[in-house]
């Protein structure tokens, strides 16, 4: 086992100081240091619950994270990053020096510039500029921090979504939610600590790997909930088994398992008994979570949610309910933003589908006093080109500049940071890489991104990787 792992920080030291350790056990001092750093899964010696809440590295600003993942990559140029110059140069070719070494997914990079399709106006006390497509966000704009200067390394959807979630565009790394659970455990007793919903036209391009646990123990992976039907797979009892019979069956299972534990003395049996008990509690807790009929009419209207309907709005409301129940990390995927064409009509529809609920989530969290402890993040995996694709109504994938907004726990509200050049092609001022975002998320959770590591293949792996990562301190409260 790995006694230096934050997992086992709660285990009393005397339980770790085993006799083999002090003997001539064939493994030298250096080797012991190494062996104990090895990332290992809970073993017989570590019955400690790997999901038990654990203290952070330093006091946290946020206890929960909700990521509104706008998969497919929304156009920052139509929503947040107002570029009058781009309108002026509409229909002309971009300056060649801008395109040096630039690769685009679909278009020839030397395609004509496309002016913004929607009007912008300033809102709130902060005077933040927002597109006319986001009237509801405009009402809460003083609660959010807009960052217009993100950039990333990937410009195809799947690798970029994997990068946005795991810090690396190669599959096999843990997602940020898995890292958060690994670092902090979960306070949700009867629900998974990392929950994922999906709405929109498609599933995320990165598939399950977007919320996978990579090389971390599988208990940290996100659990996908469904908006309708059984929220969790196999949650319902089989036909003919009512809750009473399920309980009596569990009692029998547990009794026999306990007899077996007494004979075999293997802690894994105890863990299994606990797992069956939590499964039983989840059978009640998850449907109760999903049942929106108890929400007031005002709340439902505020989100645009309808009980029993699968929608982004419902998912936003469910995210609030999850946070109320102690769930650490919630991701709502809404894959609908890949506007190679049909930019105007699709953006209108997407904003209709998401603007109200996103804003309502902030307002609702705030009115319940939860926003202070909940970090909310809105954004996609990359941005879109200032150049046109397909006539005059589409934009290609663009990694050099895109916008996200953050709000809640630890975020300074009511400001806009970061700038792009006058065509919106490159982030120029306060440039932030995806790993800076990751460092910031962990920081707000009370975790030092350099210290939150897991030994895998001889290296102490981190969400932020080996390149330097910097906190986005301009938006920290």
């Amino acid at each position, binding site marked *: 086992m790995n006694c230096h792992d934050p997992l086992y920080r709660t285990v009393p030291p005397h339980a770790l100081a085993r006799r083999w350790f002090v003997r001539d056990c064939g493994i030298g001092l250096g080797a012991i*240091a*190494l062996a104990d*750093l090895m990332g290992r899964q809970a073993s017989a010696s570590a019955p400690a619950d790997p999901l038990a809440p654990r203290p952070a590295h330093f006091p946290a600003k946020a206890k929960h994270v909700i990521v509104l993942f706008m998969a497919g990559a929304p156009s920052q140029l139509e929503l947040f990053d107002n570029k009058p110059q781009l309108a002026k140069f509409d229909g002309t070719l971009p300056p060649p020096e801008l395109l040096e070494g630039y690769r685009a997914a679909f278009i020839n990079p030397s395609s004509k510039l496309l002016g913004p399709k929607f009007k912008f106006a300033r809102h709130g006390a902060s005077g933040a500029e927002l597109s006319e497509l986001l009237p509801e966000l405009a009402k809460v704009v003083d609660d959010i921090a807009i960052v217009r200067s993100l950039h990333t390394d990937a410009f195809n959807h799947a690798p970029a979504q994997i990068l946005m979630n795991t810090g690396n565009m190669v599959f096999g790394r843990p997602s940020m939610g898995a890292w958060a659970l690994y670092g902090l455990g979960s306070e949700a007793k009867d629900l998974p600590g990392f929950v994922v919903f999906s709405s929109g036209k498609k599933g995320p391009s990165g598939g399950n790997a977007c919320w996978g646990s990579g090389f971390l123990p599988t208990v940290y992976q996100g659990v996908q909930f469904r908006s309708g039907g059984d929220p969790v797979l196999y949650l319902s009892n089989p036909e003919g088994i*009512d809750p009473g019979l399920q309980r009596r*069956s569990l009692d029998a299972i547990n009794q026999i398992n306990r007899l077996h534990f007494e004979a075999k003395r293997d802690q894994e049996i105890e863990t299994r008994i606990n797992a*069956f008990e*939590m499964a039983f509690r989840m059978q009640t807790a998850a449907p109760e979570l999903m049942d929106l009929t108890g929400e007031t009419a005002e709340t439902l209207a505020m989100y645009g949610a309808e009980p029993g309907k699968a929608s982004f709005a419902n998912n936003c409301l469910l995210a609030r309910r999850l946070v109320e129940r102690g769930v650490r990390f919630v991701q709502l995927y809404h894959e609908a933003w890949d506007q190679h064409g049909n930019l105007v009509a699709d953006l209108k529809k997407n904003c209709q589908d998401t603007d109200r609920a996103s804003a309502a989530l902030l307002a609702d969290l705030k009115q319940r006093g939860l926003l202070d402890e909940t970090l909310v993040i809105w954004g996609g995996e990359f941005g879109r080109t200032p150049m046109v694709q397909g006539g005059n109504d589409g934009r290609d994938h663009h990694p050099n500049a895109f916008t996200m907004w953050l709000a809640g726990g630890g975020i300074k509200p009511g400001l806009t940071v970061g700038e792009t050049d006058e065509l919106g092609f490159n982030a120029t001022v306060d440039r932030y890489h995806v790993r800076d975002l990751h460092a910031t998320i962990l920081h707000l959770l009370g975790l030092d991104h350099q210290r939150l590591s897991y030994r895998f293949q001889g290296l102490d792996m981190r969400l932020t990787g080996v390149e330097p990562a910097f906190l986005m301190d301009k938006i920290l409260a």
Partner: protein
Amino acid sequence: MQTTNCILAGIHAEGRFLRIAKLSTCASLGRWLTWAAVFGGGWWGSGTAAAQAERPVDFQRDVRPLLSEYCFACHGPDEATREADLRLDVAAAAYEDRGGQAAVVPGNPDESLLIERIEADDPDLRMPPPASAKDLTDEQRNVLRRWIAGGGAFEQHWAFRAPERPPLPAAASDPWVRNPIDAFVLDRLRKQGMAPSPRAAPRTLLRRLSLDLIGLPPEPETMASALASSDEEEAYRASLDHLLGSVHFGERWGRWWLDAARYADSDGFEKDKPRQVWFYRDWVIDALNRDLPYNEFVVQQIAGDLLDGAGQRERVATGFLRNSMQNEEGGVDPEQFRMEAMYDRMDAIGKAVLGLTIQCSQCHSHKYDPLQHREYYALFAYLNNCHESFATVYTAEEQAQREQVLAEIKQIEDQIKQERSDWSAQLEQWVQRERGRRAADWQSLRLAFDDNSIGGQKMLRQADGSYLCQSYAPTLFAPWGVAISPLDQISAVRLEMLTDPNLPHGGPGRSTDGTAALTEFKLQVAPADQPDAWRDVEWALATADGNPPEQELAAQYDDRSGRRRVTGPIGFAIDGDDTTAWGTDLGPGRRNVPRHAVFQLAEPLTGASGSRLRVTLVQRHGGWNSDDNMTNSIGRFRVSVTDRANAVADPIPASTRALFEIPAEQRTEEQTAALFTAWRTTVPDLKEKNRLIEQAWQRHPAGHSQLVVQERHVVRPTYRLERGDFLKPAEQVQPGVPSFLHPLPHDAGTNRLAFAQWLVDARSPTTARAVVNRIWQAYFGRGIVDTPDDFGLQGSPPTHPELLDWLAVELMEHGWSLKHIHRLIAESATYQQSSVGSPEQLAEDPDNRWLARGPRVRVDAEIVRDVALSASGLLNPEVGGPSVYPPAPAFLFEPPVSYGPKTWKHQSDAESYRRAIYTFRFRSVPYPMLQTFDGPTGEVACVRRPQSNTPLQALVTLNEPLFVECARSLARITCLQAGADPGARLQFAFERCLNRPPSAEEQRVLLSLIADEEQRFAAQPDAAWKLLNVPEVQRPELPAELTPANLAAWTVAARVILNLDEMITKE
């Protein structure tokens, strides 16, 4: 002083920044310190310290791990991040005189800069630098001091020395010892002051052995007969023989290898399209069943295609390399993701074969192991010369049928030869006649494709002027490109559809059959001085070398329009009807050949020089779902023009026409046969014979596709890539092997086969060790080396180094027989121990590192399912074949859960009950039950599965429909076969599930549950029928003594038994 300064100077401002950035990957050392302090108080502070101090410092055990952990990141193999030009991983460098001082002065710690710096109080001097968050403890410093005092000798890392057979320890003569494994284990236990556990009970042992070897519990009858034997040992040996010979052995251990081979049935990434690779899966099962020597097992997977006499089997084996994921989302650069696949192959070979983390050196020299960045690309170069190919493969039955068809055709051709004794002369006349006919001169067009019309597909121009279509494959599109006319007059346009190894079945299309359909072929022209004044060109005539009969599109191309869409002869490509298309498919056996068509202009273009030609390839014969394999588009094509009048398609294949130039006496038999085949189709008298041959072709089997690699004729150069970025090639690199591993033989070639043979050279330090370690891990839950993918400097040291080496040598000296290793382990007393730990053992060695007891481990995901199927009598034991689709929630395969709509074609109960190794594996949507029990997704090679124990697992075994069905089935067979006595029934069910009778207490719990539930169900029979899953209209007559309530109550009990911890645990 100069040198000191130099080392100091390593911490100039920028250097420090870099160091912090790199070192911080090892930040968890900070936590280690906390614990070290705790231990330090009770351990070194007490009397033990003195005893400890006398123990000589061992470099391997005590010193190198410290150097590796604390020093090598900046003073190790990676020259790019090396500070102060000092490396401490090589003796000569550490001893080097650095202007009066050296880092290590043998015998003299006080003179050694290393000691000076690690003991420095000044934070600017101290090593490791405080900012690295790493610090040595006093005792660690003392170890380094004592090491230098004792001579400061360096030794080669244990795992980089080839294993040698160690002598057996004295414990070998102990009566407990059954084979040398036990001698090493007992020796270790004695040093720990521990003793082995007694042998496990025969029942436990047979169940353990069966789960380990075939992944299924013993059949109750097998268990009964083994227990009936008077000679317990003999019965165990007989079971072992039986299981090692079982066809299911290859399934259990095949899955073990498939983890490392990152096997899955889909491409991964966004589209995650299904792929056909199950022939590879079956090859693995078969190879392990026939105990293909491990060295050959590896060679065939890396380079089977290059072996002498390589057949289908050897080519299929190279599917190992092709198990990499493939990204075909719109707009991707195929070369970028080919490189990702190459990195993945290197990673898989590193983990699965070498047990080394070589992928670190993809971007830079390894930080810890002596693998240089350049050496990584030298290894890479061996693999870099492949086509990403698709073989057409046949099952044994299909192969037989194919041979029969070919024999039939040959027979008819022989008949022709018999009947026409002068065939040879006639053939020759024909050759001379055809040869004299001047073919048209064709000038290929260089086309600039419109970005929007190609729909994200990449058209890669080839040296021969053709375009290879890669990346995303649209299903309904009309790509167009513009060329400048190379001729002044244009009379006809030729479209060639060409084959290519990188297309399904070799093409020429991108459909799963390698076929394509051309809906319309269009040409427009614009004068040079009016580039946008497009004018449509009319066709007079179209001819093709292949004109299949009209046939309706197959279901996989359904576009949901409801229209009847057909393919057929070439005329369909110029009829202006978008429901008809020219097809290339002449049926199995002959569909994957080049085809071409010639389109004559109604009016030749004159004065065309410099005009713009716009060619449109309308392809609207694919299906509706472009995220699945519904494409039917062209894979490689070339467009050419001629000024020759009346040009028509050449009915003779280009490859045959090329043979005309070879004089008759120099032709090979195959060449003559090809000419004969072309000739006979031109002879009017042979119409009937030709018809019979056509008929025979119709019986040719279609076969299947299997991803394989195929060597390129033109060698692709390999470059070292800066930071692993395929856009940043540095110097060119030749194939070669790293200097820290064993050398190549003198006569080694430079191709993949040479590399494969080098991997399994008997001098390889890690190959044999890595595989015996992984086998050991599967039996005992952990390896002798706990990091099966890292035998390098940062890996775990072996708990039993001599045993590891003994097993590695034993493997090689027994012809690399894996079954020999299985047998040795299974026959050892170590393996046969009881797994019940005494409280003392559990306290002393909770993880069972020293093996004073047998393994007790939850079985792998697939076995969790297989055990339930087997115990409940549902298991379908069929081996091999296409992957199957057991029931799964449909919404998983639909947006917005899945990216695109996926096909999950559950067909029958029989396939539901197949072993889990055959379950179709989508990488992006893993089969839920397998994922929940830690089954890997196949995204990367996995040589060690995590083991979790979670509530979601409980929901699966309690509620997943198949597990519930198992409960019903178990109850049914229990009630029908075990009589009416509840005790006998319970005994029957327990034997099936757990291979033991229930204890009195277990009986009490279950019988009381059954009695209660039977009463409840009797009061509500509908609930009983519901649980039994029988709708009202189908309720059967039950045997007299069996009521629905009784059966339902037993179903409840069966479900309880199937959910016990013991059910899914190897004890």
